[in-house]
Every structure is written in structure tokens, then in C-alpha cells.
């Protein structure tokens, strides 16, 4: 995870195009200025960053399902529950699945677990549009390579 660049996902562990599910990993940094303010003497990862992490996980699932032809954007947080604190240095496992595929949007169910125990979960709505420009598409290609997006998942 690199909070400064909003890069919340470190690697894709599994992308199941048939089941429409994804599992990724995210290593919470041991040190970051965010933890100096949230909170002094009791550092925990802010809930909004956990939601962003679940949204990015959901987004990569959609990018894969849409064969890198469209870009998803977080549109609504239908429900989110922060069930346990996430301190610095934890290794997060993030899961997402498709709840509903609409026209130009999707609803996902996502959760973050540590050691098999759920720390938070959310129902998210993401809208998606064709990539607005080549720069963003190129950036997503580069990130996909960095996080190990399984290219074979795109094969027919």
C-alpha cells in the first residue's frame, strides 16, 4: 500500500472470471504520516481508506470482467461496517464479488479479512465508462503489471 498515491492493492491472489470474484492482498505500511494523526498514540487505518481498498479491489474485478475496455469509478457506498481496528503493518486479504451487473454500473460485496477474521465489509456501487483517455488506460496497464493481474483471465 502507498497511501500517498492511493495505491491500496499490492497483488492479486486470485481472479475467478466464472465466479466473478477476486482476492487481493494489501500490506498496511508500518510507518506513515496518516498514523501520526489517526490517532496519536493509537494508530489505526482510517475507515475511508479501508473503503477505498475494497473499492479498488472491486474495481479490478470489474476491469477484468470488462476486458480492460472500461474504467470503473466508485459511485456509492451502500453500506459499510468497520468491525475491527486495522493497525500499522497488518497484511490484509481483500475479497470482492459481483452482486449485480447493471447497465453502466455494478454492485459489489467486498470485505477485508486478517487471519481469516473479517475487519470490515461493504456493499459498493461502481459506475463504469469507456476509458476516457489513453493516459489512464496506460496507467492501468502499468498498475495491472505491478499487482500481477493474470492476463490469462482475459483469454476467451
Amino acid at each position, binding site marked *: 500500500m502507498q497511501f500517498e498515491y492511493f495505491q491500496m492493492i499490492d497483488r492479486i491472489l486470485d481472479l475467478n472470471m466464472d465466479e466473478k470474484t477476486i482476492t487481493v492482498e494489501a500490506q498496511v505500511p508500518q510507518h506513515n504520516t496518516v498514523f501520526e494523526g489517526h490517532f496519536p498514540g493509537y494508530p489505526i487505518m482510517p475507515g475511508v481508506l479501508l473503503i477505498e481498498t475494497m473499492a479498488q479491489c472491486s474495481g479490478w474485478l470489474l476491469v477484468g470482467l470488462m476486458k480492460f475496455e472500461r474504467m470503473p469509478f466508485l459511485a456509492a457506498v451502500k453500506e459499510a461496517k468497520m468491525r475491527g481496528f486495522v493497525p500499522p503493518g497488518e497484511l490484509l486479504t481483500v475479497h470482492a464479488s459481483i452482486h*449485480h451487473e447493471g447497465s*453502466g454500473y455494478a454492485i459489489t460485496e467486498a470485505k477485508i479479512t486478517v487471519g481469516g477474521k473479517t475487519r470490515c465489509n461493504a456493499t459498493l456501487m461502481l459506475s463504469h465508462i469507456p476509458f476516457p483517455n489513453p493516459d489512464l488506460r496506460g496507467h492501468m496497464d502499468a498498475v495491472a503489471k505491478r499487482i500481477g493481474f493474470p492476463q490469462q483471465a482475459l483469454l476467451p
Partner: protein
Amino acid sequence: MSTTFDQVATIIAETCDIPRDTITPDSHAIDDLGIDSLDFLDIAFAIDKAFGIKLPLEKWTQEVNDGKATTEQYFVLKNLCARIDELVAAKGAGAQP
């Protein structure tokens, strides 16, 4: 048995917190009820679930943007409900052997 309009009006009322009695078949979802694009996604989600269909919002939006259709054709509620009925009928026909 409630009509398509009754179901859609209830969905809109509950999703957008609009008084049910102000929603009529001639209401324009955008111009009269003030529903924005994000709220309409919520409505589409609820309609998709309630009727077991997939509202082709992107196709409709494209047709409006291209000047091939007017917003009234899709977003005046009686017209929207007619489209929903068509989609439900098409789904039923497709499900038959």
C-alpha cells in the same frame, strides 16, 4: 396485484425520499422529480431486482445524446413503465423453450 407504475413509483418514493402522491404517470423523472444520475442508478438497481431485468440505461443515454430519442421517451414514468413491461415480456419470451 400492483401495476408496473405502482411498483416503480414506490421504488422512486423510497429511493429518493419523494412523496408518493406527487409521483404520477406523466412525471418526468429528471425534469419533474429532480432525480439525478446517481439516484437514477439506485432506481435502476431496484427496478432490475424487482423485475428481474437489466434496464439498458447506457443505450438509452446514448440514443438521447445522439438525438435519436428524447428524454421523454425513457424518463416520463408511463413511458419508462412501458419499456419495463417490454423488457419483462422479452425476458419471458426468451425463457420459453
